[in-house]
């Protein structure tokens, strides 16, 4: 069993996700951003997209497919960045 496919790894990822959500909540509260449920939903979807992009690039490199890593990184990376900008604009809305 290798670490990154082990149960312990996903346990740690879960802890990281929880810490991120708590930290993000405090950060938003301190700046006066109101996090409605749909903002949390959009944030959750974006986190999945972000994780997918990184995992895609990593998987492609691991498979010995640098071309897939490059083009996948560019395509999914751009989608991730553009959606992050969009998400940011939504999150900082006070209403």
């Amino acid at each position, binding site marked *: 069993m290798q670490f990154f496919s082990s149960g312990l790894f996903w346990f740690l990822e879960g802890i990281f996700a929880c*810490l991120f959500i708590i930290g993000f909540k405090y950060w938003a509260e301190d700046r006066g951003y109101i996090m409605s449920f749909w903002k949390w939903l959009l944030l959750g979807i974006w986190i999945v997209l972000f994780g997918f992009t990184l995992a895609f690039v990593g998987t492609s490199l691991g498979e*010995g497919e640098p*071309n897939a890593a490059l083009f996948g990184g560019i395509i999914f990376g751009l989608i991730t960045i553009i959606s992050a900008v969009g998400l940011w604009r939504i999150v900082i809305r006070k209403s």
Partner: protein
Amino acid sequence: MAGKKLKKTINRRQFLKRAGAGSAVLGGAGMGFFGYQSGKDPESYTGWETHEGAQQSFNRKRWSVDKPHYKKVGPTKRADARTEVIFSRRPSLQRQWRDETGIDGLDEVLQDYYRRNPQDLELDLYAMKEIAPKQRADMQKYGDPFTLAMAWSNAMGAVSPPRINRPPAETDFLRNRRTGEPVESMKMKSPEKTSKLIKKISHELGSTLVGIAKLNPDWVYLYPMRGRGFESDQEIDIPKHWQYAIVVGSPMSWDPMYANPTYGTSNDAYSRSRIIAFRVASFIKQLGYAARPHTPGTDYDLMVPPILIDAGLGEQGRPSIVITPELGCNFRPAIITTNLPLKPDKPIDFGVQRFCKTCKICAENCPSGAISMGGMVEVRGYLRYKLDTAKCLNFWDSTLGSMGCRICVAVCPYTRKANWLHKTARDVIINDPTGLSDTVLTALQKRFYPGPDPQKYYIPSLGGENASYRKPPWWLRSEDFIDF
């Protein structure tokens, strides 16, 4: 006191905010490393995870259909293996061909076939006169890098059960040593239980795939291949005990398969499937029932792909071979015909017909042009994709290394590693009723996983560069181990 508490609260918030930011970085990095390990993980080599059948995990019940996808569109007829099976026809041509007499010097069967299919005569002669000498010359000149690939391929083929070269009545039964009579059949409790048992035994004996079909007589050759115990000029009278067909199948090793055509081999899966089939046959015979293995490379009395379809293991794809949900087309099957009462499996329809219509990656990457870019055609009364076997084998015979091609196997989107990425892509394709994902994922596949220009797969004498689809694994790089 209140001031102290406030300060403590702020510190905790600060801490959690920073921990959250750190967690985002660590979590993101973890996803990248997870991906990297998934990509490298040998456990994602389809079909190699276990020999206990766990890899045959696709839920076939959900996709099972009453009738197989191939359509009967006219009067059917059985194949004449002497001419329609290229592994039988070409050796006959080699034995009989004389330049001075030409086609008139061939026996009636070959003459008749080649007069109806002059393009095959041209391609078969081209293989004999042009390709073979050029391949030999190039092997001398450029063959060193493929030394380990050849050694490995030959090693995989070194162990093999003896060929069955006697008729079914003599070989298919276990006989009492004293009386010479077939041993008595044991009374099995039910076909369902027996099928379950046979599948478990086949997995235990090393088979990744197992399926059971009622044998359709249309799939048995009308005239036999050489060396199977039948008279070559007599039609095969299908034995009554060939009632069911058990299909077993084993994957080809992943990394060499990905380095086709020069480093890959069929011998590994051929050898495993052959040994498994003989073992399953032995098991059945010891229960007092008849069993006859039909095994790769050329020891068959029947056509294999339609039996796989009938047994619900997969569907015929554009390259004319069967695509399974688990292994794509990266496997080699063998068949056991038997009269052991079994419960046949149902065929499946998991969308390969629709997908192959739009994908065409195999046809675009096929160096010989043997895979059609067009639609299905009628073959002996059935509508199906047809491979130009003469063109295909001409390329097989031209390559260096352990010989062969299998580029269609390597590039097929269904033949990818069993990691999260490709499993998800496969599941999206299979479950999408609109077909939109076929187009999108095929486009991504072409963009992300391109192969060399197909011409580069050829040997230098035929205008190529001995290219392979991907680089060979470290253990087949001869120049790293041998001082040439």
